[in-house]
């Protein structure tokens, strides 16, 4: 049952990445056409716009969700590639532990970074 569950979450993470990465592309690369979330100037990478987005709770939330989705999606795919190399049962268990702990560690670090950036922006 675990593979059915992991595969379903893999698809869900892919859908989340599609939406949030699409949002990123619209904001950062279609700014001339769309021009959303750029309150200070027309250029999305101007300091004033970066700070404005960092202050917004929605963006902090979206960064964390995108990070979680990308980590799960990528690490699950990487796990599948490693498992196709035919490791033994013990090595499979070890890989599961390493990838899970590695993913959780990266997620915790990224979440802290996104949260700290928002907190710093709010002091400016």
């Amino acid at each position, binding site marked *: *049952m*675990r*593979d*059915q*569950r*992991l*595969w*379903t979450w893999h*698809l869900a993470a892919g859908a989340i990445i599609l939406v949030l990465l699409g949002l990123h592309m619209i904001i950062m690369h279609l700014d001339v056409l769309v021009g959303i979330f750029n309150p200070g100037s027309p250029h999305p990478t101007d300091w004033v716009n970066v700070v404005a987005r960092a202050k917004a709770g929605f963006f902090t939330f979206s960064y964390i969700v995108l990070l979680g989705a990308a980590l799960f999606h990528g690490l699950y795919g990487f796990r*599948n590639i490693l*498992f*196709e*190399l*035919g490791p033994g049962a013990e090595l499979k268990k070890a890989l599961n532990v390493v990838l899970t702990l590695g993913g959780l560690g990266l997620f915790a670090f990224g979440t802290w970074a996104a949260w700290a950036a928002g907190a710093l922006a709010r002091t400016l």
Partner: protein
Amino acid sequence: MTTPDTVTYRLRRYDPASGQPPAWEDITIPVTPGMTVLDGLKVIKETASPTLAWRSSCRMGVCGSCGMFINGRPQLACNTQIKELGTPVVTVAPLPNFRIIRDLVPDLRPMFDAHAALMPHIIRDDMTEVFEPTGEFLQTPEELEHFLQFTYCIKCGCCMSACPTMATDPAYSGPMPLAQAHRYNADSRDGGFGSRRRVLATEKGPWKCHYAGECSQVCPKGVDPARAIQLMKRQLVFDYLKLFKHPCPSKVAPKPTEIKRREGVPEAPAPTL
């Protein structure tokens, strides 16, 4: 295309009793129009190499015994004409992704074990009706279309030998068993999805399929196992999300009572089993 009068068979030979690793052997034989790769093997056995071993039976692409790796492609030897290959050398090896028993004979037991583990038969609550039928299970032509093409599978193993995942992952069930599991999951007379899910939801299930599609490309019967695997994935994802409505197995149609036999039509013989 020129039609050569002779063709050279490059055969993969292996005899486990000899203790030698597999090796190639070249044998040249005359070719006649319409001659199949299987016919050529028989000529070789009769005239040049009586110890050559392979598996074959029906000679008409029905039994699925003579699956071989012919010119780098899994094909049925009885269904492949030498002149259609268009090469002066015909390379014949046992199907890849299987252990070799001898010469061109692969060990298909892992495939049939995986096939049996997925319960490729009708499963219902009323199994007495299956073994001692009182009528026919109702099924519309539309319901039949959901699984009909997958019933054409002859279990030759060509799809298994073309599958890139099978080449590396021994846990993967493979295209044939998975397509046959879907064949029954999609059958409106069947109620065994829950039983098969116990295997399908694990690493033996369809999750490792990369959708390379080679299984469907090489199938000699035109079955599309890659499609079956993708449909099965969708079914299992919907099942996990509680969005899959488990269909009730179709009901039994009572035997008609008011129909009279036409004159001259004899009674069916008594069942022998």
